């Protein structure tokens, strides 16, 4: 792994347009309608025409299993009117969106592409809950985890139980992650859930996989998000407020939870974050807000530690002290996170970027805008931590 991207990088990469659909249950929309909506929003924001786009990337976990549709990238390019632009589907389970972004980042940074549309989409509600649980369990090791009856909530519950055992994290602290995310989500018109909840609501919600309960889990959502990338030099052609991708790094860990060095840590997050900090010369204390992968409440706890925002085992305290709310020291998941904003898996990694861009432009809705935000960090995780993408964005004006 080379850490020195500087010698190869031809240009800095800027985000010049973003688009998103509301997340939730879109009974009247299929995969193609969702991604078209988000794609057009991003392109029109930047005033871009289809023929200017020279690469389309689509993060999508499982069009085949959720909607019977493979070859998703070609479908999307066709329906967006982008033919004959090359279109590529990127799959890394719940990190599909983040990895797609990184592929777009590389395409621009290398100088090989001028304008790249990066999308993420998942249409999940066409199938029943049992099937959806099965499809999602494909993100773990099918033969040695899912085959034995492990589900995704089950895998994260095992992390939660061990973490509570080792570090004394309390059930209430865990619940406060969801409470905070629902509070932020209540200000986000695109969020799947906008209701506010209490700690009691969480710990009395129906058990899914002990110790995790329904309100510890991100929902099954439909949705799409898109961002438009170009080089920093060209960015001003499209927008007055380009957002610069200071780093977009990815790392891999073991697919199975049982092979991890430490199941209470996602090493891939640490590895990706370290590279991102190194390449961007930005450190955690420079970061104004975070978008982290809270597929389950425990995942947000791990993220804050693995990204270096607190000592191992200390994240729970930050929730007792309310530090992760907008207006406090370290706003986390200002759009409601996966928990409240929703988690259409392939879209999530791109949605996080859309949210950071809105925040850095100062365009987020009242109640969740972090004032004066200059630098934001996103962490997108695939599976139980086999893939992690860490992206750092900064205002480019």
């Amino acid at each position, binding site marked *: 792994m080379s850490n020195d991207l500087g010698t190869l990088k031809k240009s800095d990469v800027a985000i010049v347009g973003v688009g998103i659909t509301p997340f939730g249950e879109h009974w009247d929309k299929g995969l193609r309608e969702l991604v078209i909506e988000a794609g057009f929003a991003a392109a029109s924001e930047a005033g871009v025409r289809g023929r200017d786009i020279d690469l389309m990337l689509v993060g999508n976990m499982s069009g085949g299993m959720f909607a019977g549709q493979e070859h998703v990238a070609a479908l999307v390019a066709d329906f967006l009117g982008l033919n004959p632009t090359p279109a590529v589907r990127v799959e890394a389970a719940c990190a599909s969106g983040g990895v797609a972004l990184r592929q777009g980042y590389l395409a621009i940074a290398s100088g090989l592409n001028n304008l790249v549309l990066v999308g993420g989409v998942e249409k999940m509600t066409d199938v029943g*809950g*049992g*099937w959806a*649980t*099965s499809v999602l*369990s494909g993100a773990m090791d*099918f*033969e*040695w*985890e*899912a*085959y*034995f*009856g*492990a*589900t995704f*909530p*089950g*895998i994260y*519950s*095992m*992390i939660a*139980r*061990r973490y509570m*055992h080792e570090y004394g994290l309390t059930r209430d602290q865990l619940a406060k992650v969801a409470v905070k995310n629902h509070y932020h989500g209540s200000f986000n018109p695109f969020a799947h859930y906008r209701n506010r909840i209490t700690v009691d609501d969480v710990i009395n919600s*129906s*058990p*899914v*996989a*002990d*110790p*995790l309960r329904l309100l510890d889990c991100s929902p099954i959502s439909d949705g799409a998000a898109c961002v438009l990338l170009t080089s920093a030099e060209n960015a001003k052609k499209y927008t007055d407020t380009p957002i610069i991708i200071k780093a977009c790094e990815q790392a891999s860990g073991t697919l*199975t*939870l*049982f*092979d991890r060095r430490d*199941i209470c840590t996602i090493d891939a997050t640490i590895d990706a974050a370290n590279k991102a900090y190194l390449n961007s010369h930005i450190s955690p204390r420079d970061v104004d807000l975070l978008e982290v992968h809270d597929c389950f409440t425990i995942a947000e706890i791990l993220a804050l530690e693995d990204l270096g925002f607190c000592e191992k085992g200390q994240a729970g305290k930050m929730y007792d002290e309310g530090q992760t709310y907008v207006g406090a020291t370290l706003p986390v998941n200002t759009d409601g996170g996966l928990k409240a904003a929703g988690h259409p898996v392939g879209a999530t990694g791109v949605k996080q970027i859309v949210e950071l861009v809105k925040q850095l432009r100062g365009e987020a809705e009242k109640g969740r805008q972090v004032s004066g935000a200059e630098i934001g960090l996103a962490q997108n995780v695939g599976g139980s931590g086999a893939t992690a993408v860490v992206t750092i964005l900064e205002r480019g004006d």
Partner: protein
Amino acid sequence: MTMYGVPSHWRRYKERYRLSGTRCETCGNIYFPPRKVCPHCRREGKPVSMNFSGKGKVYTFSVIRVPSEGFEAYAPYVIGLIQLEEGPKVTTQIVDCSPEEVYIDMPVEVCFRKLREQGKEGIICYGFKFKPTTDAILKK
């Protein structure tokens, strides 16, 4: 869910029936499931087949109440990571005890159970699960 066919189960009999793994003769690391390449030594590694004793303890666990397709009838069931006495961990179901009886560090041993069925007409997939040890039951 019958999308994974018969051969995909059959080729894992050794591991699923007899809890067989590999030990790298170069570095001594032990792996489950078996690995053809030692991730530590890579080309210098010499992985050889070995059987686990089937004894271990619970490292962590969860009680699955919302199962995947094919496991509906079993819910709620306990899924856990077992730390085998040889070192590696495995994901497995913990049976023959109620969810309330399971605790971290509980001694367990391997048993042979149905893992899943490929519908009513398809094959039955057998393999390992874990249960409280005989010694632990006798002590109670």
